[in-house]
């Protein structure tokens, strides 16, 4: 029986492999999770944080739109990419720079989206990542529908919708998990319980003890994982994805983490996060934790960090440069993708607007 099948969300403690001090329970460490891979994920998590933080900076300078930073949630996203295949699909919410980048969405496109260019959601061919989905909870059904469609077409492929605690209250969460249970779709629901939906704490969102146990209502299992423990996240998602791919059906993963930043750049968490809560969580930071482990293993050094930082900065700066060179939005693209073909109305309106704007 797999790890995920074995877990009892009503009774078992949160799943953890590496504790806050980087100490690892080697018995729980899965085979493929080598130190090399951990080093690689470390660099990816650092890059993610840099890329994310860059948007915050650009936003403050008026060079970006409103942005929901994912700082603190890196371990909920990076390891998943290592367990996915090309045939799999990711359906992000909006706080998913990490998984999007890892699954092949060019960083510049992510910047474009948050910078207010629709073209940022034109994913490269072959990249099975849906655009950012702002209406909370809505993308879960798309992921379920895709998995269902692949199954009906006898194709292989797991779908992974990302969402957070607030989304579990939506009607679409219910419909999505219910459809997934009924059709036994290969869907791994990845709930990043980051403790808040804007200012609303997890406890005000629902009265169940965990979010993981909500899976039981739909006839499949859920597991609560330490979302700041990259090893646990790797182990659990690997297992869940394999289970789903093998026809076992859906799984709900509650990755317990913390949104270290504000909800978005227009939010001020000081208004509602109780004193000390953030500090407590900062001690559990997923990157710092992995660094501690790497240090114990003599795999980390200040020099290495510098190299990583330099490489990351280069990647980020390149994307920023490309982003800033994005051509301005054209009337054409605003009209031409409403339908496959311009309707007579749209053709007329487009011509009129072009005339009005550019004479």
């Amino acid at each position, binding site marked *: 029986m797999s790890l995920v099948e074995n877990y009892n969300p009503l009774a078992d403690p949160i799943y953890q492999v590496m504790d806050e001090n980087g100490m690892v329970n080697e018995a729980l460490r899965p085979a493929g999770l080598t130190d090399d891979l951990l080093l690689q994920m470390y660099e990816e998590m650092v890059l993610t944080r840099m890329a994310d933080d860059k948007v915050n900076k650009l936003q403050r300078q008026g060079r970006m739109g409103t942005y929901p930073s994912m700082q603190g949630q890196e371990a909920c996203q990076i390891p998943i990419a290592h367990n996915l295949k090309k045939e799999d699909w990711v359906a992000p919410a909006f706080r998913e720079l990490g998984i999007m980048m890892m699954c092949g969405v060019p960083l510049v496109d992510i910047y474009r989206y948050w910078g207010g260019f629709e073209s940022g959601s034109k994913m490269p*061919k072959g990249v099975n990542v849906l*655009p950012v989905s702002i209406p909370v909870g809505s993308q879960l059904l*798309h992921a379920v529908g895709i998995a269902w469609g692949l199954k009906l077409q006898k194709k292989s492929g797991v779908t992974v919708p990302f969402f957070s605690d607030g989304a579990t209250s939506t009607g679409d969460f*219910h*419909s999505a998990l219910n*459809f997934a249970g009924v059709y036994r779709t290969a869907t791994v629901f990845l709930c990043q319980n980051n403790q808040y939906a804007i200012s609303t704490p997890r406890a005000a969102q629902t009265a169940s003890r965990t979010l993981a146990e909500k899976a039981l209502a739909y006839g499949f299992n859920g597991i609560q994982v330490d979302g700041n423990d990259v090893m646990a996240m790797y182990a659990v998602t690997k297992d869940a994805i394999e289970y789903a791919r093998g026809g076992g059906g859906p799984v709900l993963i509650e990755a317990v983490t913390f949104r270290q930043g504000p909800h978005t750049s227009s939010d001020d968490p000081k208004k509602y996060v109780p004193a000390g809560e953030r500090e407590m969580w900062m001690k559990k930071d997923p990157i710092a934790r992995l660094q501690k482990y790497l240090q114990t293993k003599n795999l980390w050094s200040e020099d290495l960090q510098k190299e990583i930082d330099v490489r990351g900065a280069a990647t980020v700066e390149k994307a920023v440069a490309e982003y800033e060179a994005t051509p301005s939005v054209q009337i054409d693209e605003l009209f031409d993708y409403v339908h496959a073909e311009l309707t007579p109305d749209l053709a007329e309106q487009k011509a009129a607007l072009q005339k009005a704007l550019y004479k």
Partner: protein
Amino acid sequence: MVEALNLALKQEMKKDPSVLLIGEDVGIDGGVFRVSDGLINQFGKERVIDTPLSESGIIGAGIGLALSGMKPICEIQFSGFIYSGLEQLISHAARMRWRSRGRFTCPMVIRAPNGGGVKALEHHSEAMEAIFGAIQGLKVVMPATPYDAKGLLISAIRDPDPVLFLEPMRVYRAFREEVPEEEYTIPIGKAAVVNEGSDVTVVTWGAMRWLCEKVISAHGDKASIELIDLRTISPMDFETILASVQKTGRCVIVQEGSQSFGVAAEISARLMEKCLLNLQAPVERVTSPDVPPPYLRGEMLTLPSEERIWRAIEKVLNF
């Protein structure tokens, strides 16, 4: 019309293995109006699928099916129950192509019986097509005849984008018409001039067409009435309306739903913009009043009647 729709579904499902039907009771029951009768036997449980009771689930999962390469036909049992699915319809199905600049698309049909006049229960007689017309990126189709129903449904299924296909319940079994066995399509976005005339243009769609035809039968000797069946609510074939009203100079719009904020208002506003100088009389609207659809005892009081239509025609003729 039920048989025509059934035939269209059957033929398209046979032709294109990616077409599948999902919805409440579409399977062994064949849909509450029997539109999908027999399809589950012919195509099996993987192509005709009874879903849990969630309109948002049906449309939202339908979007996923479309993204996965299938062509879902989602049945909403009555248009009055589509509301909980509107977030998926407005914010995703209708926007996915635009949002992703063509990278992802949602070729899907959302079918729903629409309108009143069949003594149905509360919420089963809604005629809210105007609010669907206001959704950017969504096509809204409403056939009035079995022939058109088949041709338009086939077009809707083959359309690369989401199409809301509203079926006037009142026509489901009211009219028998031989529908050709072979495949044919009727283009979305094209109205039909059902009756040629020179004195006044009557524009309508859905079940109201049949009332208008009766008015023409009854009063055709008194006036030469040009009757236009819109067939597609959005994108609207205004060209055909305009050509007709430019000729007749008079126009009556007959709309089943409530008066305010309806499709008729949009048509009237366009006539205002495009042919004011041709008008011999104000464009008249014959509609239901701005009240919820009454239950079976009262519904005929508020629905447009032949008499109210004829009076409106007389009014514009005598202006």
